[in-house]
C-alpha cells in the first residue's frame, strides 16, 4: 500500500521522457527521410537522438519537471487557496461575505457557458455573488500591471535585490517539505523508503535567511518607516527562531531524528510513551504530555515567523504605514506580501510534520491508476491519499491561524520581544529539560 497519489519521481520521469520523445520527433522524421533517400548512415542526428534518450538528460529534465510541479503546487495552487481561505474566513468572522468575484463575474464565460441550461449554472451567477476564488487571481493580474516606483533616494541595487532574497528563501522552504511519501524533492530512497536525515534543519535554515533580506530591504528604501519596520521584523524573526529551534530539540529528544519522513513514520504507529501503550491513538507528538509546551511554543513561533496578526508589528499598518514594504510597489510588493502566506503555509506544514502526524491518514478504499513511470502497470491509490490528509491538516492549522489573527489586537514590539525572550525561551528550555528527564528516567 503506497498511500500517496503523487509519485513525483515516477511522474516527472514519465513526463520527461514524453517531452524528450516529443523533442526528438522532428529528428526522427529527418532520420526517416534520410534513410528513405538511400543514405546509409544519417550522420550526427543519430547521436543527437541517442543523447536525447540518454539517462542523464532524462533525469535532469525529470528533475526540472518535478521542481516545476512543486513550485506550481505551492505558489499557484496552495497560495491561492489559503489566500482565499483567509479572506473568506475573516470576512465571516467580521459578519460579512467577503470577496465575491467568481466565474460568473467573467463576462465572456457568463455569456457563453452560462447560457447552457444546466451545466452553466455556476457561470450564471450575478457578478458579485460568486465564490470569490477569482479575486486573488484578479489581484495578481492587477499587481502585474502596476508601475514599479523606485524611490530616488533609495539604494537602488539593494532595493531590488532584497525582495529576491526574501522570495527565494521563502520558496526554498518548499524543497524540504514533503507532501507525502512520494511527493518530495529533497531526499533519497534507502531500503525502499524515502529518507532526508536533516530535512527539518534545512527548513529552519531557509527560515533564518529572511531577516537578512528584510533588514536590507528596510535599509535600502531609505525611509524611516521601512527602517524601523525592517529592524523590528528582523529582531522579531530572529527572536522567535530560537524558541522554535529549542522546541524542535525537545522533540528530537523523543524522536531521535530530524528526518520528516522518519518523524511521520514514527507518528503513524500506535501511541506509546514509555510504559503506556494506547492502541487506538496514533503516536502524534501532540498527544505526548511532555511535548505540550513545545507544541504551543512552536505554534506561537510559527505565527510570528509568518508575521501574522498578533505578531505582525513589522508590518503594523497603523503606525508604520506598511512596515518594511512601504516603498515597494507593483509586483515587488505583490511578491513580498504574497509570500508571507507561503511562509505561513510552510509553517503550518512544519507543525503538521512535527506534531500532528504529517500526512498519515486512514486508508478507506483504493482504486487502481496506471503507473506513469512504467507503462502497462497499475498501482493502488487510496480514495483519500496522503496528499489530501496533509493538505487538510495544513488548511485546518491555517484556519486556526486566521481565527487567532483576526480576533486579537496586535502586540507591541517590545512586548513581542519580551514574550519571545522572557516567556518562550525559558518555556522551550523547560520543555527540553522535561523531555530529557522523561526519556532519561524511563529508558535508561
Amino acid at each position: 500500500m503506497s498511500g500517496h497519489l503523487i509519485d513525483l519521481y515516477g511522474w516527472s520521469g514519465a513526463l520527461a521522457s514524453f517531452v524528450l520523445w516529443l523533442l526528438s520527433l522532428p529528428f526522427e522524421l529527418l532520420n526517416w527521410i534520410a534513410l528513405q533517400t538511400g543514405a546509409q548512415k544519417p550522420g550526427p542526428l543519430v547521436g543527437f537522438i541517442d543523447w536525447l534518450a540518454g539517462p542523464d538528460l532524462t533525469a535532469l529534465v525529470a528533475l526540472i519537471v518535478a521542481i516545476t510541479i512543486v513550485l506550481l503546487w505551492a505558489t499557484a495552487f496552495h497560495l491561492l487557496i489559503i489566500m482565499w481561505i483567509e479572506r473568506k474566513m475573516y470576512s465571516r468572522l467580521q459578519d460579512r461575505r467577503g470577496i465575491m468575484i467568481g466565474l460568473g463575474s467573467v463576462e465572456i464565460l457568463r455569456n457563453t457557458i452560462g447560457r447552457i441550461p444546466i451545466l452553466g449554472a455556476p457561470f450564471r451567477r450575478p457578478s458579485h455573488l460568486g465564490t470569490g476564488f477569482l479575486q486573488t487571481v484578479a489581484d495578481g493580474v492587477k499587481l502585474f500591471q502596476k508601475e514599479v516606483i523606485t524611490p530616488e533616494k533609495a539604494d537602488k541595487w539593494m532595493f531590488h535585490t532584497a525582495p529576491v532574497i526574501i522570495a527565494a528563501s521563502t520558496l526554498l522552504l518548499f524543497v524540504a517539505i514533503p507532501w507525502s511519501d512520494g511527493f518530495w524533492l529533497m531526499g533519497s530512497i534507502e531500503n525502499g523508503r524515502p529518507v532526508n536525515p536533516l530535512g527539518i534543519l534545512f527548513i529552519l535554515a531557509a527560515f533564518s535567511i529572511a531577516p537578512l533580506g528584510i533588514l536590507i530591504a528596510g535599509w535600502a528604501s531609505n525611509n524611516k518607516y521601512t527602517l524601523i519596520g525592517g529592524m523590528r521584523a528582523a529582531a522579531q524573526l530572529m527572536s522567535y527562531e530560537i524558541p522554535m529551534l529549542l522546541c524542535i530539540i525537545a522533540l528530537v529528544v523523543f524522536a531521535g531524528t530530524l528526518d520528516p519522513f522518519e518523524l511521520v513514520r514514527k507518528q503513524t504507529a500506535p501511541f506509546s510513551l514509555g510504559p503506556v501503550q494506547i492502541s487506538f491513538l496514533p503516536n502524534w507528538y501532540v498527544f505526548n504530555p511532555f511535548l505540550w509546551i513545545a507544541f504551543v511554543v512552536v505554534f506561537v513561533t510559527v505565527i510570528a515567523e509568518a508575521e501574522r496578526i498578533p505578531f505582525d508589528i513589522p508590518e503594523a499598518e497603523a503606525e508604520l504605514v506598511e512596515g518594511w514594504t512601504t516603498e515597494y510597489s507593483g509586483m515587488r510588493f505583490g511578491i513580498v506580501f504574497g509570500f508571507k502566506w507561503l511562509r505561513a503555509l510552510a509553517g503550518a506544514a512544519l507543525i503538521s510534520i512535527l506534531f500532528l502526524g504529517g500526512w498519515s491518514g486512514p486508508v478507506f478504499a483504493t482504486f487502481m491508476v496506471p503507473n506513469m513511470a512504467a507503462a502497462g502497470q497499475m498501482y493502488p491509490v487510496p480514495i483519500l491519499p496522503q496528499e489530501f490528509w496533509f493538505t487538510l491538516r495544513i488548511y485546518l492549522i491555517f484556519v486556526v491561524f486566521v481565527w487567532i489573527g483576526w480576533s486579537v489586537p496586535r502586540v507591541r514590539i517590545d512586548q513581542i520581544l519580551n514574550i519571545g525572550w522572557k516567556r518562550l525561551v525559558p518555556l522551550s528550555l523547560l520543555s527540553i529539560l522535561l523531555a530529557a528527564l522523561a526519556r532519561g528516567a524511563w529508558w535508561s
Partner: protein
Amino acid sequence: MVDGELVAFVILSAIEVASAIMVVTAKKLVHNVFWLAMTLITIGGIYLLFRAELIALIQIIVYAGAVPVLFLFGIMLTRRKIMEEPHESE
C-alpha cells in the same frame, strides 16, 4: 563525462571569491554585509561538497542567518557616510 561535483565546486568557489572581493571593494557598508552573506552561504555549499551536511546547514543557520544580521545591526550604529563629514539633518 564532466564531473558535476567539479562544476559545482568551480561555480561555488567562483561566486565565493567574487563576493569576497566585493566584500572588500564595495563602497557602502551594507553592501559589504550583503556580499559577506553571499560568501558565507557559498561556503556552506562548499561544506556540502565535502559531504559535511550538518555543518553546511549550521553554517547557513548561524553564519548566513545570524552573523550578517548582527553586522547589519552593528552598522546601523555607525554613521552612514562614514568617510564624509557628519551629516546633520536640519
